[in-house]
């Protein structure tokens, strides 16, 4: 989703956490605050003064600095050189600059050595260099984009100490994260973003992790309803002892999958929960044959696929809804019917022998468009011109059309509008009833709990815990995802009951969501909620972005026309509300 109606107020000298799932729109918002992207609507106010940023340079002169998730340092230069690079005018490049770096380092307790070579530094040290770089340029407002994603726990604690020092010196920190416990431990204020809009502010002193999680993943959104189990005892997928080690950018070998074993039976949906980057993507790619294995076996329906290539695995009956549909699922500049062939070029109706059968492929594309409700004016338009939800429906339709034995669905409803989400869930369930085995990867805990028959938790490449979706809450699952719990997780009855109430309420909304008209009403409700939480006129406001409606421009090819989405998702809503495919925001993460 593009961002719309985002309201954020940050007080001077505080650590303000901005929370949200991947793809919720955090990064887009930060890009706007840092001048990397221009909002279509809305204003940014700093210390009571309304400002406009055309470039990051403008933001820097206004005292806003950003520490990116991926460090932007030149390895072969020293810390001093990296810091002065591009800001030679400030304090020169010699002794004066070095003195200034020392001064800043001491003032905030960063412990940076100006003459060290960056390539000799560890990740945490590099991060401190990045922070210093920003402070050196005179920043008083610091934006940290998922700073803890790359750190080990001890380093996280050290970082938080640094942040507290910064705060005490009057620096304002905007801290982007989706890790509940970190946020609760360091933030003075919390804002939560979901689906491109601010859904609420919270006080870390009084809010619980559970409440935060609810805000983040949106328990009030439709969640899949529970139903009769269709699990059989026929093993469909059996994965044993998967191990993959990769060398990362620093050349250090990291084990990304470590002795992963799992079994999915006919008619079973196995959900894998985990914080992004803990090996989910590699697990999927290992089963698909896209990554070479260091050890382990993959057996589908009694057929050993371990040494087989991706095509053979697909032919053997694996359907694949990839996590990043633009990268792995579609040819954006090809027409829909060619996208229908993608991944199944060797199968009917797409080809006869070595020759393609475009006529049959076109006919079948029309069928998919009809049956899976893909909103498009025709099958000759490029995939890029569809909205994210319709692209995803096309992919799901394509994968289901070849009667898969196993469906790998990675974040199947990410960046998809509510109506499409319900449809996709429905389709997965229907296939499950006919005996489909599903491996579901999701960051949406409600989706996982509502859809899965079994849940496994992945943490640092290992399956560390498992749970029955009927007896676990999102909160406890979230705890296990941080590595704090292992083994069998069961939540307290009390919490379960509470969750059940929420789920019930959600079910009501879901019904409504099915009817498209209701979506508009829901959207309106969210807007209202945002308006309530909007902090009424804090005089010492450091940054305030109000009603910022944004269209992502960076990924133009992925962008969907505003009109299309407005027409589809929120008919009747103010036509100026702009919207883009959620994937854009994902791309920014």
């Amino acid at each position, binding site marked *: 989703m593009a961002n719309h109606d985002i309201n954020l107020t940050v007080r001077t000298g505080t650590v303000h956490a901005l929370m949200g799932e991947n793809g919720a729109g955090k990064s887009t918002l930060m890009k706007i605050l840092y001048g990397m992207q221009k909002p279509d609507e809305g204003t940014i106010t700093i210390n009571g003064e309304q400002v406009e940023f055309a470039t990051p340079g403008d933001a820097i002169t206004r005292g806003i600095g950003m520490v990116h998730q991926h460090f932007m340092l030149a390895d072969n230069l020293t810390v001093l050189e990296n810091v002065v690079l591009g800001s030679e005018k400030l304090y020169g490049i010699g002794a004066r600059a070095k003195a200034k770096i020392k001064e800043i380092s001491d003032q905030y307790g960063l412990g940076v050595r100006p003459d060290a070579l960056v390539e000799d530094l560890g990740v945490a040290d590099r991060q401190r260099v990045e922070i210093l770089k920003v402070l050196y340029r005179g920043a008083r407002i610091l934006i940290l984009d998922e700073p803890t994603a790359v750190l080990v726990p001890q380093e996280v604690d050290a970082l938080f100490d640094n942040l507290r020092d910064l705060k005490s010196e009057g620096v304002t920190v905007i801290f982007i994260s989706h890790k509940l416990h970190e946020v609760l431990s360091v933030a003075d204020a919390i804002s939560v973003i979901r689906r491109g809009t601010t859904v609420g502010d919270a006080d870390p002193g009084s809010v619980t992790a559970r409440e935060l999680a609810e805000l983040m993943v949106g328990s009030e959104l439709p969640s899949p309803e529970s139903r009769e189990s269709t699990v059989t005892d026929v093993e469909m997928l059996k994965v044993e002892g998967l191990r993959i080690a990769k060398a990362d950018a620093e050349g250090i070998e990291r084990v990304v999958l470590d002795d992963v074993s799992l079994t999915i039976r006919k008619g079973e949906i196995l959900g894998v929960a985990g914080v992004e980057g803990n090996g989910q993507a590699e697990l999927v790619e290992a089963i*698909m044959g*896209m990554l070479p294995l260091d050890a382990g076996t993959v057996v589908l329906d009694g057929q050993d696929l371990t040494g087989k*290539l*991706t*095509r*053979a*695995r*697909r*032919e053997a009956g694996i359907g*694949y809804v*990839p996590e990043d549909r633009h*990268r*792995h*699922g*579609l*040819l*954006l*500049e*090809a*027409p829909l019917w*060619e996208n229908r*062939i*993608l*991944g*199944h*070029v*060797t199968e009917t109706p797409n*080809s006869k022998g*070595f*020759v*393609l059968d*475009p*006529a049959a492929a*076109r*006919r079948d594309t*029309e069928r998919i468009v009809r049956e899976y409700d893909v*909103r*498009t*004016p*025709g*099958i*000759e*338009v*490029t995939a*890029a*011109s*569809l909205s994210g939800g319709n692209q995803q429906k096309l992919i799901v339709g394509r994968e289901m059309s070849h009667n898969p034995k196993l469906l790998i669905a990675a974040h199947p409803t990410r960046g998809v509008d509510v109506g499409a989400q319900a449809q996709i869930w429905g389709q997965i369930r229907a296939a499950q009833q006919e005996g489909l085995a599903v491996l579901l990867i999701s960051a949406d805990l409600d989706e996982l709990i509502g859809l899965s028959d079994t849940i496994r938790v992945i943490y640092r490449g290992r399956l560390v815990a498992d749970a029955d979706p009927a007896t676990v809450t999102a909160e406890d699952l979230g705890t296990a995802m941080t590595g704090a719990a292992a083994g069998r997780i069961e939540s307290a009855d009390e919490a379960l009951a509470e969750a059940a109430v929420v789920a019930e309420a959600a079910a009501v909304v879901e019904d409504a969501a099915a009817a498209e008209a209701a979506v508009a009403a829901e959207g309106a409700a969210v807007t209202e909620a945002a308006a309530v939480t909007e902090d009424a006129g804090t005089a010492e406001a450091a940054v305030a972005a109000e009603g910022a409606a944004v269209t992502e421009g960076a990924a*133009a*090819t992925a*962008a*969907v*026309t*505003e*009109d*299309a*989405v*407005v*027409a*589809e998702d929120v*008919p009747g809503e103010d036509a100026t509300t702009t919207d883009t495919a959620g994937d854009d925001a994902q791309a920014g993460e």
Partner: protein
Amino acid sequence: MTTSTEPSPGLGLGGAPRRGRFQRIDRERLLLAIAAPVLAVVIAFAISSLLLAISGKDPFQAFSLMGNYGLGTSDGQVAVLNKATTYYIAGVAVAFGFRMNLFNIGADGQYRLAALFAAFVGGAVNLPSFIEIPLVLITAMLVGGLWAAIAGVLKVTRGVSEVISTIMLNAITTGVIGLLLVPGRFVPSVGGGGSSNSVQTKMMAPSSDFFTLNTQGGQLYGFIIVAVLIGVLFQLVLSRTRFGFDLRATGRSEEAAGASGVNVKRMVLTSMCISGALAGLIGMPDLLSADTGHYFGQSFQAGVGFTGIAIALLGRNTPVGIAFAALLWAFLDATNGQLSTNNYPPEIANVMQGTIVICVVVAYELVRRFGLKRQQQKVGAQLAAQAAAAAKKEVAA
């Protein structure tokens, strides 16, 4: 694929009115596709006119000289067509790689080496035409393909960019030819007598004559038919076979193709080989024509591989586009001799070629982005209109 823009008759989703709208989109895209090269050519003409005018020459006179010869005289037409034949094959060879984002800069080395070996093999035997000619052609394709395969293997196993390796292979080719094209190796030690300073392989037997079409303007390469067949085959393979689909998919998105089951590494190797094999044919019209050849000498035409890159770019890697591009290029090349014999700077044709390439690259990218955006808007507008119509119906009901 820009050629596949014509609407499918099987498009029955929305009935007549929507189909009409569709055709409009397509006509527009077609127009856009043509607009870019035409614009580039016009700009190139304008710039070279300016240059001519500055140097005190009459540009219109110069262009009419070129036009009169290249279009108006029969020998000019033959010269253009013969050149275009060679250029077309070069363009297709390069385009084949381009279609999957593989930049075979090495077509130049591949065809020269292929021609050397083909000439050597052809000179060493004396067989009836129906064996001799296929033997020569197969040798050329084999050598070209294997030479290109080196770059393919390096890319697949060591991750060496094919751009770098093929450029290097071009230089190596020159060295290898220098090494082999000496008396006692590929050149007969006792020359044909005389004291010609040019060194060349043994003449091939007359049976290696590929047929030529006798026209008023001279011998037209029979190879032009082969070139056309290559173009047709190229299109068929790309648009109608599984292999072609995999290739195009890989060209559009290597990652998506990989996830879809394409063995990208094997694909790289295969298409590099095919591109090289096609490149091996570049020298064949010359070699198999009694008019110009039957031998490989030190003055064997070099550089056509690079011309092929320009032509593939200009022709947008489609068989028809490449045909037009090859004709245009051949026209400029064949007619610039007219300029120098009439005291115009012959460099003007080179200026035009250069300008066309630069303009066309820019124009295509602009047009591509514009087209994509425009289509998205149109789709959005259409969907909105549909939704509005549906809402109205509901209200009415």
